[in-house]
């Protein structure tokens, strides 16, 4: 404060302290302006508009028609919405827990003090930075029934070849395997978590004669719960919005086995031009994710350990 006053006098601009602060405030608003515009036009505006649109029937060409909550009623009865919701929940239920558990195991291994461990850390992280489109293409080729690597591995083990992405029963699991190849993407956060655990805790436990397993269950795991919680919450939000993999690799097929919620939403909006219905779908997803997240925070109080 005094520094500001001094600054004013030393500049000799004759500005009072008041106008100096006003100027700072004006600059503040001006500099925040990009975000303010973005917030109004690209976030808050569309957020509210989406609610309004979800109450209409509109194909972009003819005039929008107000139909109240009919779209939401339709969502509850629509066969494909049900299929896509089932597929998405199935995918999430199998993917997210596996992903979190695998990432934790992997991080434990990558946290060992071995020579050259950095190379391994890099190696495991790499697949997660592959562009989604390129990785979808890559896995499409791996799961290709006639010459793909997946079947080559099966054949060399003496097992029969599978149809993978062309088999309605296997398509979802195949997409889950595909997503799991990016599991290394979660390791930096987990490693940071592991390295944040005070060594003194382990030393004390060792003096008390605690074995490796004991130390893992009583120290590592409890202290990692905040990271595990974070990974689970963000993992669920992400996997509920899965799109690119199924759009490219299977286009929702075979027999709608990989018709995920956002893919169905995309088709409704940009292939069938049902703007109202797809906005209702988007809002439904938003509400479901919000409830799920709140629920997880509530449940989290029971299992997540926070140092005071």
């Amino acid at each position, binding site marked *: 404060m005094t520094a500001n006053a001094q*600054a004013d006098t030393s500049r000799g601009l004759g500005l009072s302290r008041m106008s100096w602060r006003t100027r700072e405030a004006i600059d503040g608003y001006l500099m925040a302006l990009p975000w303010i515009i973005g917030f109004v036009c690209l976030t808050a505006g569309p957020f509210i508009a989406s609610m309004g649109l979800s109450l209409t029937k509109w194909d972009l060409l003819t005039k929008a028609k107000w139909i109240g909550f009919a779209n939401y009623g339709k969502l509850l009865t629509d066969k494909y919405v049900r299929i896509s919701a089932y597929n998405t929940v199935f995918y999430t239920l199998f993917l997210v827990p596996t992903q979190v558990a695998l990432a934790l195991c992997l991080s434990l*291994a990558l946290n060992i003090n071995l020579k050259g461990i950095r190379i391994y850390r890099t190696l495991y992280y790499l697949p997660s930075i592959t562009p989604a489109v390129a990785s979808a293409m890559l896995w499409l080729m791996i799961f290709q029934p*006639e010459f793909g690597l997946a079947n080559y591995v099966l*054949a060399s083990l003496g097992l029969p070849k599978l149809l993978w992405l062309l088999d309605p029963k296997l398509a979802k699991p195949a997409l889950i395997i595909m997503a799991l190849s990016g599991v*290394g993407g979660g390791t930096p956060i987990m490693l940071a978590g592991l390295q944040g655990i005070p060594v003194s805790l382990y030393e004390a436990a060792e003096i008390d004669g605690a074995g490796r397993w004991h130390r893992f269950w009583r*120290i590592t795991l409890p202290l990692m719960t905040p990271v595990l919680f974070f990974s689970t919450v963000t993992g669920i939000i992400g996997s509920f919005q899965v799109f690119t993999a199924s759009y490219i690799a299977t286009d929702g097929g075979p027999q709608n086995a990989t018709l995920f919620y956002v893919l169905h939403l995309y088709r409704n909006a940009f292939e069938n031009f049902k703007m109202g219905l797809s906005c209702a779908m988007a809002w439904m997803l938003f509400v479901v994710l919000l409830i799920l997240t709140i629920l997880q925070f509530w449940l989290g109080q029971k299992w997540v350990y926070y140092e005071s």
Partner: protein
Amino acid sequence: MTQQTAQPGAWTGRQNKRSGDTWIKVREVLGRAVAYLLLTVGGLVLLVPFLWTFSTSLKASGAALSWPPQFIPRPVVFRNYVDLFVLAPFGHWLLNSMLVTALSVLGAILSATMVGFAFSRLRFPGRDAMFMLCVSTMMLPFIVTMIPSFILFRILGWIDTFAPLVVGSWLGPAFYIFLSRQFMRGLPMDYDEAARMDGATSWRIWASVILPNSGAVIATIGILSFRASWNNFMGPLIYLNTTEKFTLAVGLRTFRSYTSTNWALLMAGSVVMIMPVLILFFSLQRYFLRGMQFSGVTGR
């Protein structure tokens, strides 16, 4: 060796304490060997798909379909990388991707550091409320705003242009603002006060005092926005219609119909798409991982 990172829960470490005990030593060596073995096997499993992609891109189109699969192409052909540009407007796609990505990265860095500066180092009424609002928008699934945004851009006549893919970056992406605000809060306020005494305006302080000291967060935002933009698939899919205007992500997909899935060609295209990300990763690895850790606010 045990000291620097002092890895807890590891199979190694603390060998110095009871170095006389051979049994423990044997167990340790064994443990190390097993760890190496498991890590190497796992690493190979993850690496093989990439090597296969690369090797397929160097095969003659017939050889890509051979059974059992050829791991080393015979003969090695570079033809596919030429065909990309001959058989499809691949050059356009590549340039488009580069243009969209460059504009997005530039916009993200400028706008996020500017807003982050205002949120962390300038005082004005409503500042903290705005920041809270900004952070809370990070939780909003993009799908909720996608359709009205599309309609807005359609009204503005921006369909089939790059504008919808870039404009968001110039208008302060919430997460990058969060990152730069957190970072800039850590810089000493003396910087600003000294500069103000020399008569510098807020704009001047942002540009010549704070930005030069924010290399780490600029690199992180740059990497994150590069990846987001380069990998973006749904955006270009929704907004771009003309084949020549496609970015790599959507262009690559049309390859399957162009060539009735010429795998060798498709993999060559994938390799070209992966390369810039790999180069960026290896040259800025430190910031890459830091960005990941930033984004995982570990809750502790």
